[in-house]
């Protein structure tokens, strides 16, 4: 493919703690996400997958390396420029939904547009709520929605600004398996019918099986990849991550 990658990460490291005894959460990660694809990042706890997502979202600065979003190098941007970036180029979906409790579904979806200083496009919001299957619930407050419904509102909100990439951090982590399936199918639909690019961090092999490609992370490194994943194959690979590490090191 010749098109610009939606996200491209070059040799990114992230170190925490004091310089004398540093903890390397990311140890030189390189990854490219092509537009219109669904990528899952998997790894055990402490593998650095959340740090990776935070860096990609501009919520954290990497210690070294470059991050390009839609072909634009955003590594050295200031906090306020990155805030605008999050608003315009990135849609984020969180494990715990992060809806505003005092805004109804429609208003939550319209919030990013308002934060950008504009007026939300009513027709677009209605269309997105229909896409996520909540057209009838647009006037409900988050407390009146189930967990799965709240997460679907959050996905509609992430999509409202036509982001270059949608980042999802354990989007099904707080859901029951039926709601989780709905949310994953919805993410798949956004890729297949809307041409959206999705990068999802997860530790659930079933969730990962909805992706086009799974990237395995171990100890802050990309340890392997798998195309056309099935839940069984992913689970099998997760059980033998040590082998991947031996191959790469």
């Amino acid at each position, binding site marked *: 493919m010749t098109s610009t990658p939606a996200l491209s990460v070059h040799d990114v490291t992230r170190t925490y703690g004091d310089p004398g005894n540093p903890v390397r959460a990311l140890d030189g990660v390189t990854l490219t996400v092509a537009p219109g694809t669904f990528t899952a990042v998997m790894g055990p706890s402490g593998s650095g997958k959340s740090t990776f997502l*935070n860096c990609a979202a501009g*919520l*954290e600065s990497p210690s070294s390396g470059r991050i390009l979003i839609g072909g634009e190098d955003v590594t050295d941007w200031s906090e*306020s420029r990155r*805030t*605008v970036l*999050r*608003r*315009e180029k990135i849609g*984020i979906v*969180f494990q715990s939904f*992060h*809806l*505003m*409790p*005092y*805004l109804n579904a429609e*208003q939550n979806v319209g*919030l*990013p547009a*308002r*934060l*950008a*200083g504009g007026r939300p496009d009513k027709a677009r919001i209605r269309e997105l709520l229909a896409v996520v299957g909540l057209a009838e619930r647009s006037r409900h*407050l*988050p*407390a009146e929605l189930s967990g799965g419904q709240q997460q679907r509102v959050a996905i509609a*909100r992430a999509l409202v600004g036509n982001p270059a990439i949608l980042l999802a951090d354990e989007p099904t982590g707080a859901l029951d398996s039926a709601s989780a399936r709905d949310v994953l199918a919805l993410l798949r639909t956004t890729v297949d019918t809307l041409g959206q690019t999705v990068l999802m961090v997860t530790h659930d092999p079933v969730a990962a099986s909805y992706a086009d490609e799974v990237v395995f992370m171990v100890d802050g490194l990309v340890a392997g990849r798998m195309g056309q994943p099935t839940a069984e194959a992913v689970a099998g690979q997760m059980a033998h991550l040590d082998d991947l590490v031996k191959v790469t090191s």
Partner: protein
Amino acid sequence: MIGLALRSLRHRAPAFTATFLSVLAGTALIGSFATLFETSLGPVSKEDQEILFIMGAVVGAWGSLIVLFSLASTLGIAVGQRDTEIATLRTIGATPGQARRMIRTETLLVALVASTLGAGIAWVGGRGLLAMIREAGMVSDSVAFAGGPLALGSTVALVTVTSVLAATIAGRRATSGPARLAMVDAASGAGRMRWWRILAAVVLVGYGVVMAMITVFITADSDDPYAAMQTAGSSSILVGVGLAVLAPTLLRWTAVTLRPLVGRFGVAGHLAAFNTSRRAHVLGGVLAPVIVFTAASVGTLTLVAIDGRTSGPANAEADLINLLNNVVVGMISLFAAIMVINAFAAVIAHRRNELARVRLLGATGEQVRSSVLVEAGIIAAVGVLLGLVAASATVVPFALARDEGFVPDGTLWLPPVLVALAVVLTLAAAALAVRRATAAPVLATVNQ
């Protein structure tokens, strides 16, 4: 439960600061007046006794009403903001009774320590108060300070019992209903007004209005020039506290009405308009002290001014009454100011996570800060408006009684100045609280 309560206190010391400060300041204020009352029971002359009694019991009682009310509302905020934590305890097997016992025990411990320290301040403060009225020549120099265990002990008991009672009521609210429901973003929900609150508000406002009518129709014609003051003087405080009891509902109504207007002010106005209307039960705790501050200061100071114009040549009795009124206003205003700052700090600290959430979505720190300031603006506007309504319950009847008509003849600059003070205080308290809340990096806050 004591073990759990102690660990919870130690772990979350900052969260109990609001409770601690309110109890401390409240005990110091009530206790100082209580020592005057106890002094009046000692070996003093009849005249001295009467003045000490008025100062201690009458003035002290009005102060106590306001202090106890503010204390209860602060404790309501403090317990209410732990809804998620309480729900978590219940999902792992704590019965509602156990959760309530933990809340009660914590409050009892904090209130006992804070009110004991407050009693120490009151012991010094009472001496200062007595020295002041001795200096002013209102009581003879021979009157010796006799505040002790009776005054301070009963103040500590009163404040502690009020605190535990308020925590019990708030705890009941936090533990009613199924445990899981509370886990679903507990921050939302209407927060129904309970019948006893409505009853208390009706009694307080009704009492204030009746006193105002008595002033106009009965005591205005009395031979004693201070009869009208006695009946009108308390009306503003009564109506003010009565309206403050209903603060959440009044805030919801006005915020819903103001929504189209405030919504025009960009995203900050949009967020503030919906937050004040849909979460009025949280922000009502901040509105209450603004109402009381405006009502008490405008009502009482205008009363003093009218009296100064109409009571003829200065005499000792007028001096004393003016001093009393000024002391009351000063104390109450100071206390209400502490309460406004306290309440904002507590409410904003609780909303730290929510504010960080908006920033994650792409709000700048500036947008978050201005949305909180717009909220504070709405609260200030509603607060001073209701406060002025309450103040008129004192001002109008007393002005009529002293033949100045519905509107006093002078010092009309007083209400605008006090209103400005209330607005500045509210905005400053909000600005201070939100600056602290948005200082930390977004991720650190959300992951807490």
